[in-house]
């Protein structure tokens, strides 16, 4: 039960990208296309789950003073595994994500979860947390990609590795190439965050108003 709670929180309420605002660099790079987003998201999730697993399992062994180097070695190991596998099996994605695959190591999400959660919690909860956070990151990146990809290229779901040609949404002439660049990523994330803020504050207000009404009736 608690494990499910740990899993759920990462998806939205404590979404690493939308709520905690960490791990933004890979989000910027990989949200240019839905396929890249899925690739980066799953890679990060894989690393998160396994690093959380190992760190929580070893947490009683790792002394406080050298915990960061230990965490980072564990994380880097899994990242390298992902990097090598991706180069072997998904070369096109590997080429697009380029230097950012090894840089998953320094994706703040992973170290932050190791530090803030896995080091303090049990193995099952940590796996759940890692999975939740990872999928939360994936979800966030996909949302960004769903906005960015069609604006930038006019198509959506283009994935060369899998032979998807993509679905045409707007004529290529109108596609804003800049959105494909980090500029568009930052802008998109900024507007998405603002919209989330706006929606949550509105729903909060509505909740308060209805609560106030209820209070009056009583």
């Amino acid at each position, binding site marked *: 039960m608690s494990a499910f709670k740990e899993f759920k929180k990462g998806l939205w309420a404590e979404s690493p990208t939308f709520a905690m605002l960490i791990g933004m660099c890979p989000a910027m790079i990989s949200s240019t296309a839905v396929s890249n987003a899925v690739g980066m998201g799953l890679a990060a999730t894989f690393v998160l789950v396994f690093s959380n697993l190992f760190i929580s399992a070893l947490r009683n062994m790792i002394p406080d003073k050298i915990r960061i180097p230990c965490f980072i070695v564990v994380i880097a190991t899994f990242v390298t595994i992902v990097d090598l596998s991706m180069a072997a099996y998904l070369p096109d994605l590997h080429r697009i994500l380029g230097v950012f695959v090894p840089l998953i190591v320094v994706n703040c999400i992973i170290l932050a979860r190791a530090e803030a959660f896995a080091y303090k919690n049990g193995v099952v909860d940590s796996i759940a947390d890692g999975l939740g956070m990872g999928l939360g990151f994936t979800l966030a990146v996909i949302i960004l990609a769903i906005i960015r990809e069609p604006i930038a290229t006019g198509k959506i779901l283009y994935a060369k590795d899998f032979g998807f040609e993509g679905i045409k949404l707007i004529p290529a*002439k*109108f596609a*804003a*190439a*800049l959105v494909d*660049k980090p500029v568009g990523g930052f802008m998109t994330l900024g507007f998405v965050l603002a919209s989330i803020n706006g929606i949550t504050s509105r729903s909060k207000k509505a909740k308060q108003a209805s609560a106030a009404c209820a209070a009056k009736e009583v």
Partner: protein
Amino acid sequence: MDMSEKGLIITAAPHLRDRVATPRIMQVVFIALMPAALCGVYFFGPWAAINLVVGVASAVLWEYAIQKIWKFDITISDGSAALTGLLVALTLPPAVEPWVTALACLIAIGPGKIVFGGLGYNIFNPALIGRTFAALSWPSVLSAGYVAADGITAWKRGFDVVASATPLGLLKTGEIGATSLSRFYGPLFFGNVGGSLGETSAIALLIGALFLLFAGIITLRIPLVYLLTTAGLAMLFNQDPIFHLLSGGLILGAFFMATDYVTSPIKPAGQIVYAVGLGIFTFMIRMFGSYPEGVAFSILLMNCFVPLIERFGAQKRFGEVRNRA
């Protein structure tokens, strides 16, 4: 009757105010840009006129729509949106497809201005944000919008256009040499040369600039230092300084955009640092960058550093005696 019951009005001193008001300043700048706009329309034909109208109208409409949707105060009456729209149109190619102008205005007004809290708080020159976004997003559409400046002939052709390159573009591609460019002086001065809608006619821009100077809206500090830095660098690198001064958006940028109050430093020393930076970046991008023109980029770049520039430099108070160590 109701009013007198409220009693007299009390406010803090002073009880008199100058007649110059912000909307008036916007109007004056708008009018000062008219010679350049009319020159552009004359030389480039009907598309230019359509783009000007689309720019101004869409900027005002976007501002109205965004403020309406977000339930902000509607501020279109301050004239800044219309001015931004005009500047967007003037900095875009004359015959660019009008949807580009309209979208550039959306970017200028939305992310360029309103998200910062509206007029007075924007960090970057909104018009240039819009223009640069368009230039980087739809480069091929934009490059197709540069048309020949034929005056009457352009009007006779109507909506059929003849593509043309800009002098800086030719310089960049090496189609013209770096020296002895004096044959361009005349066209660059009067405006019968390829380029953005409002940037080609130096004489029209200078008339507007003089008007602004006499109206007390701008001082010469930023434009002059900017132009001198660019010309100086041109000479240093064995380029033709007059060609560099007259071509591209330098005059438009120096007098009408670099002097934008909101996005330039207030203190005189800061203004000089800002203007020197503008000159350096403009010339470097023109010479070594991948874009033929660097005015828009350099203004945006220096905009980033304005608050930083503003933080430096001690303030001299009245009567303050500096310690002589």
